[in-house]
Structures are given as C-alpha cells and as structure tokens.
C-alpha cells in the first residue's frame, strides 16, 4: 500500500521518538485540532510513548461534537415531515438533540439513511422524485466543498427535491477564538491535514504572527504525527514560531483553489454557533442568495425554539481543551457510548469517545 507502509514503520517511529526525547526540554502543551488526529493518537498509543513533559490536548475538531442541538433539532423536525428522506453521515445518528435523536426517530418510523457521501443523497433524490431528500450536512472545510459540489450538481441535474440542513463550520477563526480566550496555555498546534489540503497554509499564519505560537500541518499516520510533534518541539526549543507543513504530500501551500472556489460559489461566510462554546464570528457557512432554495430549514419552514443542552454536560469545556473527559461528572457514569449524553461521547472522533474506547476510565 503505497504512501502508507512507510508512514507506519515502527523502526522509523521509534527513531523519531528518540529524537523528540533528546531535544525536548520544556514543558509543552500541544493541541491537535482535528478529531482524526485524536483517534490516530489513541489508536497507536502515542500519548503513552511521549515524554511526560509533552502533553497532547484534544481540540474542537470533531464536526459532530461542535454541532449544537439547534441543528439536530431542525434535522429531527424535518425527518418527521411526511415524504421526507433524511440522509446524513453515520455519526450524527446517535447524537442526542434536545429531546430525541435521529436513531430514535428512525426506530420510531422516520426514513433516515446513513450515507458516506453527499453524492449518495443526490442519487436518492434523483431516483425518488416524489420524495423530498434532505442532506444533514456537517463538517469543516474538507467536507463543505463536497456539499457545495452536490448543490451545484442538484442545480445542473434539476433536482428540486434536494435540499440541505447546513451546519458546517470553519476552522482557522475558531482557533483564533480559542487563542484569544486561552486559559490552558497552548504552546503549539498540530493543524488538521485534510482541512489544510483544501485551504492551504496561509489561513494559519496569524497564529504565528499574532500569538507567537508555532503550528505544523500534519498527516494522519503514526510517523507523520510523531514528525509533526518533533517539528513543533524543535521550534519551541529554538524559540521560533512559524507555520510549517509536515504533510507536504497532501498539502500544497495554496491548498486546493478549485475546491475553495466551488465552496464560496455556493456558500458565504457567516457567524456560527458552536456547541458549548457559543457564537464565533466568521466560522459558519450559509447558502448564498442564489442557492437559498436548497436551504431545507426555510423550505420546510422550521423554527426551533427552546432547544436545551443537558445541564451536566461539559462537552464545551472538553472541546476547548479546558478539561479532559475525566473531569466531567457524567463521563463513564451517566454518559457512556451506549447511552451518550453529549456528542463528544457519540462521534468516533469525539474526545470522550476516544478516551472511553481506549480505556481511560479514571486517572
């Protein structure tokens, strides 16, 4: 398997680890922003092999986790309308909204389908013209261009029965918000690989320039992650603060301009509500006026009021890296993967789910 085996080489991993240990003097807190990194770090046991002075903190990069109940309630409300097929990514099924979840609605009879791609949702729409097919779209800059491309296809293929509940988010401005209110002392960022494959490196430059903190765009294999950590530690030890790219094979400096063009042809930037964090300016996407007919929420006249979060749920603090799941009173007690209270326990890449799956039940 090309581009894979060499990045999982145990000898190479150990060599890089030895090098990290030899140069690392200071106590550092590195935040991995992306949920896929969180899972890879746990899956390969990377936290355990790092020296004690290097802590890895999981950030807000799980799209399921940061989706507030408002959008989940919207999707549930739409799925209850007759003639509607609601399509979404698998992880959204179990996330509890204010009073129900898509999984429970499906068990109660709603037509909810798990898809791997927006194209599958489009396919359902074109094969079932008498039904309204609604795609519940979550995700970051990696996923949003695929949703935009699907909207363009729906327009081209004239599928008036396709629409979306858009709950996508943008990463760099969220990192700025995190740094502006930083209560944990982040010393470096492991930047997401595939968000960067779309947006390139420029959007991260403010991190080094304005906050004096290094950032390294990193791949997802164990050798990638260890090398990314090495590059961050090296910068910190040398007193440098630059944006570097470890994941060169997938991230050209300019990203994918064609994909960003499609993204911003269909969507425009707006403010977004993040679960547990609140509204962050410039981190949301909404359909541009000329595509507003694909907005399922207005199409079905949905108005959600009285959405509520579970009172004890500390997903917001977990998402900001302020606490680990172990410091939440619900974790592994009332909130477990089989009965999740908060979304961080639902998504496979949620911090709480990763902690639980990989056996961190107490300190």
């Amino acid at each position, binding site marked *: 398997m090309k581009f894979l085996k060499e990045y*999982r080489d145990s000898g190479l991993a150990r060599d890089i680890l030895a090098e990290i240990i030899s140069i690392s003097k200071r106590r550092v807190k590195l935040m991995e922003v992306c949920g896929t990194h969180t899972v890879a770090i746990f899956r*390969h046991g990377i936290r355990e092999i790092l020296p004690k002075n290097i802590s890895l903190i999981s950030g807000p990069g799980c799209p399921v986790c940061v989706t507030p109940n408002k959008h989940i309630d919207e999707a549930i409300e739409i799925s209850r309308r007759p003639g509607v097929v609601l399509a979404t990514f698998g992880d959204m099924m179990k996330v509890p909204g204010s009073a129900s979840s898509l999984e429970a609605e499906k068990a109660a009879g709603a037509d909810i389908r798990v898809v791997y791609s927006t194209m599958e949702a489009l396919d359902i729409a074109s094969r079932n013209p008498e039904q309204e097919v609604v795609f519940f779209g979550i995700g970051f800059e990696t996923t949003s261009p695929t949703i935009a491309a699907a909207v363009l296809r729906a327009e081209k293929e004239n599928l008036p029965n396709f629409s979306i509940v858009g709950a996508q988010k943008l990463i760099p401005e969220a990192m700025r918000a995190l740094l502006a209110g930083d209560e944990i002392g982040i010393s470096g960022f492991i930047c997401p690989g595939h968000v960067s494959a779309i947006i390139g490196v420029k959007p991260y430059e403010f991190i080094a320039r304005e906050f004096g903190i290094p950032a390294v765009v990193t791949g997802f294999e164990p050798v990638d992650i260890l090398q990314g950590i090495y590059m961050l530690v090296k910068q910190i030890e040398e007193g440098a603060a630059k944006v570097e790219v470890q994941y060169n094979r997938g991230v050209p400096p300019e990203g994918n301009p064609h994909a960003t063009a499609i993204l911003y042809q269909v969507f425009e930037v707006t403010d977004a509500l993040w679960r547990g964090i609140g509204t962050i300016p410039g981190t949301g996407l909404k359909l541009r006026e000329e595509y507003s007919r694909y907005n399922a929420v207005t199409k079905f006249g949905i108005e959600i009021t009285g959405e509520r979060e579970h009172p004890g749920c500390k997903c917001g603090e977990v998402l900001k890296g302020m606490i680990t799941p172990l410091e939440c009173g619900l974790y592994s007690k009332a909130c477990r993967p*089989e009965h999740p209270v908060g979304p961080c326990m639902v998504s496979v890449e949620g911090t709480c789910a990763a902690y639980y799956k990989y056996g961190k039940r107490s300190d």
Partner: protein
Amino acid sequence: MADNRILLAHGSGGKLSHELVKEFFLPVFDNPILNRLDDRAEVEVAGVKLAYTTDSFVVNPLFFEGGDIGKLAVCGTVNDLAMGGAEPLFLSVGFIIEEGFSLDMLRDIVTSMKKTADEAGVKIVCGDTKVVEKGSADQIFINTSGIGAVPEGVCISGDLAKPGDKVIINGFIGDHGIAVMAKRQGLSFKDRIASDCAPLNGLVKKMMEVSKDIHVLRDPTRGGVATTLNEIAAQSSVGIVLNESALPVREEVQAACEILGFDPLYVANEGKLLALVPAEIADRVVDAMKHHPYGREAAIIGEITADHPGKVVLATGIGGRRIVDMLVGEQLPRIC
C-alpha cells in the same frame, strides 16, 4: 433502554446486546445453566453430557462471496457446539419466509444447507416453515438449533482462561464482515474477497487430538475478535495482551477497513475460532491447525496475563499500548 424501544444496536453483539441479555432476559429466565452465558448450554440427560444451542440468521444480502444465509445458518450452530468441544450431531431448522420469495432462491439456500451439513457431519432432523405477508419480513429469516455430544474429559468454557495461556487464531480476521459489507457499500476488489464461513468442528477435533487441555474456544462472530476476547477476559477475570503486528489481516481487508473507518478487530468472522491454551502445548496446537484446511494461517496473537483483569490491551506496531474495548453500537449491521 432509555427511550423504551429496541434499537439496531441491541442486536449488534456489542454492549447494548449484552445489556439486553443481562438486564432483560436473564432475570426472567433465570437458571444456572443459562446464567453461564456460554454460546451453548451443557446439560446432562440420563448420564450423557449434551451441548445444546440456537441461532437465527437475518443476513442481507442473502448471497455473498463465499457463502449464503443457508451455509451461515448451518455453520453458526455447528460452530457454537464445536466451541464447547462437542461433536455436533443433529440440527433443527425454522424458516420465516416473506410472501413472494423466489422458490429458486429457496432451493439454492436449502441445497447449500445440505452441502454444509454433510461437510460438518450433522443431520438436519426436524424443521418448521412460516410464511408472513409481504413487508412483514425481509425475504427470509432462518433459525437453526443443534445438539451435540460432549466427549469424556472435555472441559472448555469462557471462564477457564489462565495467566500464561496463549491466544491462538486459525487465520485471517475480518473476511466475512468485509465481504458482506463491500457488496452493500459499493466497494469491489481486484481479487475476490470471500467470507470465511466454514464449519469448524473438524478443526477442533484435530486440535483436541493434540491435547484435551484446551481452556477456552470461542468463535469471534458479531463484534469480532475484540468483543469475544473482552467477554473471555471478563468471564475468566484475566487480562489479555494482543500483539498488533501478529494479527493476520489480508491487505484488501485492511484497506477496506481503512476506507470504511472500521477496525478489523471488530469485524465479524464466520469461520474463525480463538483458542486459549497452555503455553507448553501452544506451538503443537498451531502446528496441527496448519495441517487442516481451515487453519492454514493459524497464529499465536497474544497471551493471558494476571495483570489488568477484565481488560484487553493491544501492543501497537509502533510500541505504544492501548485498551481494546468491546464493540459499542453498530459497526456492521445485519451481517450474520
């Protein structure tokens, strides 16, 4: 059962299934034989030790690479008996068929059942058929139950694992789940990936010829190797350490897992067994397995420890360690 309804995950073989059994069925049916929670019950009738089990099959699609629902229905029950060291003898079969189902397909399924039963050396001796209205069932569901004889001196159970035991698997993991899943997810393979579905009583017999001192046998079906080993760790109050680089996984299965976001440790098998045996006989057992068609790629993949009782730990390829928990929720719906 917070929302008072059965969810798909209650049937996945993972945590919710266990909850359903423990909190819902056991308190009602409560008796010492059932309470052991092995894959089969062992009962003594007129001085003869018998093994007794049942299993239902709802796989979609009905026909897949390497097997079909009929073959699965025979293998599943035969294997549940064989995992107690029992010699499978007789099966019953119950069909629940949806109105309008093709007779040609039914014939193919029944023929496949007969062929598999012959290979396993069991007879299908009684049965039942029900037909339900269109829409009340998805094509066809099959239940089989089976009876086997437990030979003298055989004592195999999920609670008998001992520190120092080696964990043996009889070949590549995840083939069945991926063969079935691929068809549903629009994945195809350059080379054919077939389900490993097979009756394992012949292989078990070969293993017991080496030694009857096999502590635990279990077939890692739904929930995969990870879930089965967690069950054993809990039942025996021992820890299990798995060696990631020793796990036999086909390149295509590994690749499909990467693509679908699955972990091969949680993917279902239908022709695999996990054997926990004392270290001193492990190599000879593996050797004997390698001489059987269903054990060619047999390997030692881990060992039992007195540390961390109830937990399964994986030593990762890059030198880290992590806990391997049971399957939670639904990784692969309806594949057995």
